[in-house]
């Protein structure tokens, strides 16, 4: 099968097409800085970019290391050619036709269907890929710590992610369950108190009624006054009941409608403040970058000066190159000085001068490149920060819209509460007026009736009032504790308790299941990985080691077993302590095993630069093995090779 890779404005390549063969080992050959790495970048980019166009955090780090994403500090080595607005990669193999288009600023315009970010870890072996970086001690991980191989490449990490989301929910429901249980505990004595007070109140009502009747009997002439007073008292009591009911309504409205919205509003306002602060930072950064405008003109002037200097140097260099040709053709020992034409120079002096000029030219070139890079970095930073400012302004507008909407939603419960409070105020005024009428009548009756009976009546009435107030407070507290809000729905505590309990139970069960599955995935991945490593070891016949193994849970470390001539036995050794060439040998075993274990379905393996570093004997073995792999699996194995001949990169088939 053939695979065709077409690149447009990727890395240093403006346009190119490369054909790979799944029946042969594909060797991409070119001189230094001629496009080998750009081919590798394009291929790795299209094979690793996920369908949604976004790398996960850890994959993004790898993409930066492998040049698949542009490093803002080094845009000249970026994925898209620095002189182009966008880069395009197309890859066809078998029935599959993929394309990947990305802009200079990193925005993805089109993504491949089969891209898998795990390819960055499992499908590429280069001096910048994780396996080799780690073995050489150039990664933040310890050289033998390969937990990522079972965590990031298998499904273990996704099981853990889902378990993590459920754990947060489980904690929320457990906390809610505690709140509900406390409410149930607090409600029991409150209900008992309520019942006791109601009984007491009924009893007092009966007693005051009896006293009233007695007073009425004994003071016939004040019958009318007593009746009026009793009516006023009845009205006072009715109004007190009505006020309590309205206060309960207000509390309920506040708990279920107003408070959640106010919390939401607080959160949105906090988010708005964060966006404002970021916007302020971005504005400050833009102002700082614009202030650097002078530096840009300085750089341009300096570059022009250096270019002029280089042109002069090129003129002198050409004169010396011509002199070199002349002296070789004439086979004479000396020649007139190409610059002053008066003195004479030898062949050795000419070649020495050419070497000096070339060295000076190289220095000038690197200075020009450095200055251009500085200017480009400034421009990219400015464009990115301006883009960020634009997006923050849009976020701020969205945030204002959200706050405006919440304020509108808040108006409904606020209006309802205002109306309730207005009714309460009205009731209170009427209550006050009736209380005055009652007090006045009572005083009047007191002057005409039996003093002892009147006092008793007053005392009982005061007590009744006190009990009534206490009852009101208890009823209000009961109402507060009786409304439990869960995910926007309101329940009574007795219903909320089994709901929270059942939710917590189901979540705990699912978390345990997901954690078990994650561990199974890790163990299974390690087992498959070791099987593949063993198979590779026997195929490659590396005599230095008996075993290369990944240990099991919980450490997942790589170690080798090698023969110790002193002890005449095999001993374990950490991979970080191996020699440079042994690390290289191990890297190829580990990389192919990772590919075999996790990405068998994506038939590509890229080996950039590394084969060059093997000694001849081992390189031959590796190449034979890779050819065998190609024949057996039908993979496209693409390796790069440095050659001296100049010209565009070409593919050789072994």
């Amino acid at each position, binding site marked *: 099968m053939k695979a065709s890779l077409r690149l447009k404005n990727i890395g240093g390549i403006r346009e190119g097409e490369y054909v790979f063969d799944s029946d042969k080992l594909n060797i991409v050959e070119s001189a230094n800085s001629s496009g080998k790495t750009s081919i590798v970048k394009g291929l790795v980019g299209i094979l690793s970019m996920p369908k949604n166009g976004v790398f996960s955090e850890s994959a993004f780090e790898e993409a930066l290391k492998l040049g698949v994403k542009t490093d803002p500090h080094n845009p000249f080595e970026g994925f898209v050619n620095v002189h182009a607005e966008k880069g395009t990669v197309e890859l066809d193999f078998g029935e599959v036709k993929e394309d990947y288009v990305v802009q200079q600023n990193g925005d993805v315009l089109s993504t491949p269907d089969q891209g898998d970010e795990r390819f960055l870890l499992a499908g590429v072996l280069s001096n910048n890929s994780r396996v080799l970086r780690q073995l050489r001690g150039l990664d933040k991980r310890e050289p033998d710590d390969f937990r990522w191989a079972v965590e990031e490449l298998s499904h273990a990490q996704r099981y853990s992610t889902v378990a993590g*989301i459920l754990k947060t929910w489980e904690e929320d429901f457990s906390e809610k369950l505690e709140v509900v249980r406390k409410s149930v505990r607090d409600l029991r004595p409150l209900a008992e108190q309520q019942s006791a007070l109601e009984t007491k109140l009924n009893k007092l009502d009966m007693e005051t009624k009896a006293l009233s009747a007695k007073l009425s009997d004994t003071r016939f002439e004040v019958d009318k006054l007593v009746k009026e007073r009793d009516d006023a008292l009845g009205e006072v009591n009715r109004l007190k009941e009505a006020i309590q009911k309205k206060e309960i309504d207000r509390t309920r409205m506040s708990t279920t409608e107003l408070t959640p919205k106010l919390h939401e509003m607080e959160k949105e306002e906090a988010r708005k403040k964060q966006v404002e602060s970021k916007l302020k930072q971005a504005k400050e950064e833009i102002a700082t970058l614009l202030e650097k405008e002078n530096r840009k003109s300085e750089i341009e002037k300096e570059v022009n000066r250096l270019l002029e200097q280089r042109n002069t140097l090129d003129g002198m260099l050409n004169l010396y190159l011509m002199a070199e040709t002349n002296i070789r053709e004439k086979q004479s020992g000396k020649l007139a000085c190409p610059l002053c034409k008066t003195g004479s120079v030898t062949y050795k002096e000419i070649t020495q001068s050419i070497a000096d000029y070339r060295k000076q030219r190289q220095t000038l070139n690197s200075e020009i490149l450095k200055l251009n890079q500085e200017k480009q970095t400034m421009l990219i930073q400015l464009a990115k920060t301006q883009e960020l400012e634009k997006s923050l302004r849009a976020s701020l507008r969205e945030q204002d819209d959200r706050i405006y909407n919440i304020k509108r939603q808040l108006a409904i419960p606020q209006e309802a509460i205002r109306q309730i409070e207005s009714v309460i105020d009205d009731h209170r005024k009427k209550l006050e007026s009736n209380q005055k009428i009652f007090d006045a009548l009572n005083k009047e009756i007191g002057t005409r009736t039996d003093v002892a009976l009147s006092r008793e009546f007053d005392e009982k009435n005061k007590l009744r009032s006190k009990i009534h107030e206490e009852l009101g407070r208890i009823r209000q507290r009961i109402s507060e504790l009786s409304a439990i809000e869960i995910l926007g729905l309101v329940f009574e505590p007795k219903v909320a308790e089994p709901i929270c309990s059942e*939710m917590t139970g189901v979540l705990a069960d699912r978390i345990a299941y*997901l954690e078990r599955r994650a561990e199974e995935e890790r163990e299974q991945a390690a087992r498959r990985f070791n099987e593949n490593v063993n198979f590779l070891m026997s195929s490659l016949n590396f005599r230095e080691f008996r075993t290369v193994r990944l240990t099991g849970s919980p450490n997942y470390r790589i170690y080798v077993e090698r023969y110790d001539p002193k002890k005449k036995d095999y001993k374990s050794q950490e991979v970080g302590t191996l020699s440079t060439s042994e690390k290289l040998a191990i890297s190829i075993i580990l990389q192919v095993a990772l590919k075999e274990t996790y990405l068998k379905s994506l038939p590509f393996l890229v080996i950039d630069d590394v084969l060059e570093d093997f000694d001849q004997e081992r390189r031959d073995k590796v190449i034979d093995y890779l050819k065998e792999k190609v024949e057996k699996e039908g993979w496209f194995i693409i390796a790069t090779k440095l050659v001296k001949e100049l010209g565009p990169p070409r593919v050789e088939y072994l």
Partner: protein
Amino acid sequence: MERLSKEFLEKIVLEGKTSAQNIQDRIDRELKLMLEEIAKRHSK
């Protein structure tokens, strides 16, 4: 149909190409439905 079933969780894990935010949203929706069903049962 059982809510937040093991099959549902396996499907989310094995789909592979969805973002973390998408996973969170789907689980949140499923939990709300589960709560409504449990609440219906306990409110009878």
